[in-house]
């Protein structure tokens, strides 16, 4: 069974990459923090009694599920918003417009810290390249090559076959190579 200190050390080592993974997936700073928080909570509350060596693949699986849950909740929320929006009167619409304008004015201030930290031109290009990948290819690439899970662990985290993981990874690498070549980037 992992001790509190071991879990703390593990999470401290993985939290930044987990956050970046969540950002790449959900494309929003605050939602990404929520996703990471949910994943951390779940790991500690439900799997805190597991041995320390089981934590990395376990956490990645939980993180992928948390990202999946985020999209599912968004879908449900969007459905209800669409359902309710025709019932709103004009005043509400105006209020919403003002709110959205205010939100839009605040938005750059919220997103800036994340963007400011990316000073590396090449990193920005690579992040753009990752953003162009289909979600499953990006997920497979990050788990397999950034988190260094093996094919079986990646397949388990993604809930697909090992063959699919290999295909996603192959296509992701090919797409990244093409993108980088087109942008004139060489390692």
């Amino acid at each position, binding site marked *: 069974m992992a001790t509190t200190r071991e879990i703390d050390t593990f*999470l401290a080592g993985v*939290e930044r*990459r987990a956050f970046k993974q969540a950002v790449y997936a959900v494309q929003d700073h605050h939602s990404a923090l929520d996703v990471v928080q949910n994943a951390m909570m779940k790991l500690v509350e439900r799997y805190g*009694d597991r041995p320390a060596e089981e934590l990395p693949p376990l956490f990645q699986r939980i993180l992928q599920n948390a990202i999946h849950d985020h999209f599912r909740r968004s879908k449900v929320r969007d459905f209800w918003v669409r359902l309710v929006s025709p019932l709103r009167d004009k005043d509400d619409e105006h209020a919403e417009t003002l709110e959205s304008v205010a939100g839009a004015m605040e938005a750059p201030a919220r997103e800036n810290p994340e963007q400011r930290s990316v*000073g*590396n031109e090449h990193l920005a290009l690579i992040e753009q390249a990752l953003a162009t990948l289909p979600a499953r290819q990006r997920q497979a690439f990050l788990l397999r090559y950034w988190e260094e899970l093996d094919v079986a662990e990646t397949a388990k985290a993604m809930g697909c076959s090992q063959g699919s993981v290999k295909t996603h990874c192959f296509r992701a690498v090919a797409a990244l190579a093409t993108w980088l070549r087109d942008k004139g980037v060489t390692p």
Partner: protein
Amino acid sequence: MNEQEIIAYVRRALDEGARDLDGATVARLSALRHSALDRGQPRLRHHPGVLAWVQPRRAAVALALLVVLAFAGWQQARQAELARVVETDLSLLTGELPPAIYADRIFGLWLKGYRR
């Protein structure tokens, strides 16, 4: 660039990106971690006892099972009662005596005396 070079290059860049996260985000992540560990402390410290079984999901399943069993029991009792009534009615209708006799006051009095 071959495949390994691309992977190594992207990894290096992503590592740098994660390392250079802004201070506010790093502090927030650290706070989230501590909050998660604090909330999970009881589970980490103590071995789960008998009460660990009493989780909301399990309790809901057990409750649903009880409701289904109770409904099945009630349904079975109702069927048995219905069968008894049908049997009585059939025996009355197919008997030698006309059904009107059972509604007669004298039959009621006789029945009371017979029971005594």
